[in-house]
């Protein structure tokens, strides 16, 4: 069983925690997420133009790049995480240009060597899969795709084709961190997705409170939280790990109570 499969085979929904690489003491922050009980780590690769992200993650990207974070640094953070946490799956999330700058094969191999399990590329839809997908699959890295409220039943098979690891359901048509979807619409959407695939379905966008996480965990295989963590990193700096661990634990407790 792969690390990702393992994470989604627990008796409770998996808790997927996102932070941006190079924003604050990333190693300490990642350790805090794991100590708090996160099942999957999503590590954001900073980009100058994060056009699918809301203000929180935009700011995190700028803080990280302002601190001089390079692609090599991101890969090193992943490598060090893998050394410290051999069993916790790590997914890189980001935008196409930094991923393909040196060629998709270069990136896929480097990610593999850093112990990365999956890659979410926001702006490579299935139509442009050639730009990165084949290289990832050749290295055994899961290309994780996004489904959204605008992805209809006709299009869904195309989204699923060639993807693995899990399916990330973006529960609102919008950018990260701003609105939240109504619980009813999530239940319906997750049911439709699960009818079309055996992949686990994780739900994110706008999840900030443990109660929201629990409501999603009733129907989905995973819950993704990003902006709430990134805000804590921005606000608390060096003192962020304690806050991250606290929020993670509260989220995980709520999910396990479902």
């Amino acid at each position, binding site marked *: 069983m792969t690390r990702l499969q393992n994470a989604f085979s627990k008796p409770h929904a998996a808790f997927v925690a996102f932070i941006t690489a190079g924003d604050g003491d990333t190693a300490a922050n990642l350790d805090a997420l794991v100590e708090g009980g996160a099942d999957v780590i999503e590590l954001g690769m900073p*980009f*100058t*133009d*994060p*056009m*699918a992200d*809301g*203000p929180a993650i*935009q700011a995190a990207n*700028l803080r990280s*790049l302002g601190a001089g974070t*390079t*692609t090599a640094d991101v890969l090193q953070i992943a490598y060090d995480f893998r050394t410290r946490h051999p069993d916790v799956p790590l997914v890189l999330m980001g*935008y*196409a*240009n*930094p*991923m*393909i*700058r040196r060629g998709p094969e270069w990136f896929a191999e480097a990610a593999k060597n850093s112990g990365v399990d999956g890659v979410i590329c*926001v*702006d*490579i*839809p299935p*139509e*442009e899969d050639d*730009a990165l997908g084949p290289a990832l699959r050749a290295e055994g890295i899961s290309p994780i*795709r*996004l*489904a*959204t*409220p*605008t*992805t*209809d039943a006709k*299009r869904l098979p195309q*989204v699923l084709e060639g993807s693995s690891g899990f399916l990330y359901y*973006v529960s*609102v*048509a*919008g*950018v990260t961190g*701003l*609105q939240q979807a109504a619980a009813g619409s999530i239940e319906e959407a997750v049911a439709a997705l699960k009818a079309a695939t055996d992949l686990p379905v994780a739900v994110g966008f706008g999840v900030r409170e443990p109660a929201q996480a629990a409501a999603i965990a009733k129907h989905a295989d995973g819950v993704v939280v990003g902006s709430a963590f990134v805000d804590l990193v921005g606000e608390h700096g060096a003192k962020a790990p304690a806050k991250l661990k606290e929020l993670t634990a509260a989220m995980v407790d709520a999910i396990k109570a479902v």
Partner: protein
Amino acid sequence: MAGLEAETRLRHAQPERIFVLNDLPNTFRNQPDERGHFGDFGGRYVAETLMPLILELEREYRAAQQDPAFQAEFDGLMEHYVGRPSPMYYAERLTEELRKDAEPGMGAQVWFKRDELNHTGAHKINNCIGQILLAIRMGKTRIIAETGAGQHGVATATVCARFGLPCVIYMGAEDVARQSPNVFRMKLLGAQVIPVTSGGATLKDAMNEGLRDWVANVHDTFYIIGTAAGPHPYPEMVRNFQSVIGTEARAQLLSRTGRLPDLLIACIGGGSNALGLFHPFLDDPEVKMLGVEAAGHGLDGDEHAASLLGGAPGVLHGNKTYLLQDEDGQITEGHSISAGLDYPGIGPEHAWLKDTGRVEYTAVTDDEALEGFQLLCRTEGIIPALEPSHALAAVAKRAPQMREDEIICMNLCGRGDKDIFTVAEKLGVEM
């Protein structure tokens, strides 16, 4: 690499002034392919939320292309609202001026396609008319757009006022401060101008914010992209709406001079005015083409906006194209005296035309553009925008190297009213 071979062949062919077509595409006018790719460039690199929308846009655009009523409405507005056809003007005094430094018998005739005489003062309106007709056809009730210098913002606000649709313009906070007359124009026209403070607070950040708005309002909103870039079908669609420029120019030159021009010249930011002029001539092998990028303070430093000559291929804002970027793929800020050329990317069709060798690209500096600006004011009584002033600088270099029976046609794509403050500052004049 096919592009490099083609370029070499072109160079070898130059003494005879023949464009050798062996092994090159049969036509340069059938791009993009059905996936929106211009060779390796273009495509649809957008978030999944937008993907279904972009596919719908393409379907609707194809239907509109087949609909004579759509074309008739576009043509009618071009004639009676925009003021087309724009004149084709022989710049006699400029031609004579440039011959002064040329060898005997040298110094090409300079002709201008005068798109600066369009309503709103630039070529931007051609595209805005086309896109708002499509938006209305699709039942969209809200229009958004990004703008740099404000020309596309003004053109979008204009068509929104004309058709009674609410309009939101995203504009970098830096540009809002630098371009206050255009901000006021947009507001007069009823648009809401939202200053964008994220990133470097310029055009690319305004485009990011436009995409964020769109992704959150997909049900009712149409995004009027201002240049021949973005995800498919935008580059093709914008080019086609702007091709009215080249179609008119071709007919006008044939009628006035009895033949096709030898060289077309246009400035390039995103590249829509250049494509509009070039595209109808792409399959005329005797017509050479020169795209002029902004070299800012010079291509040897970082202070320029020449994506083709100083950038590398990558993915931004929905398409694969040449970008100003660092070794990690982070986008760098462009610089140009002209806010309209100050974008770190370029339309994907230009990337393809460069690699195939069909179009030659060069760059001119801020200072050269300023000289071009003043040269035209002085010789022809036309105040050009700083964007086509770059093309003028290239005309001034090329014309003396061509025979006097040869013809250059330059797209004078915008008027300079908006730029007089910038120019005054650069020339050290207090206003």
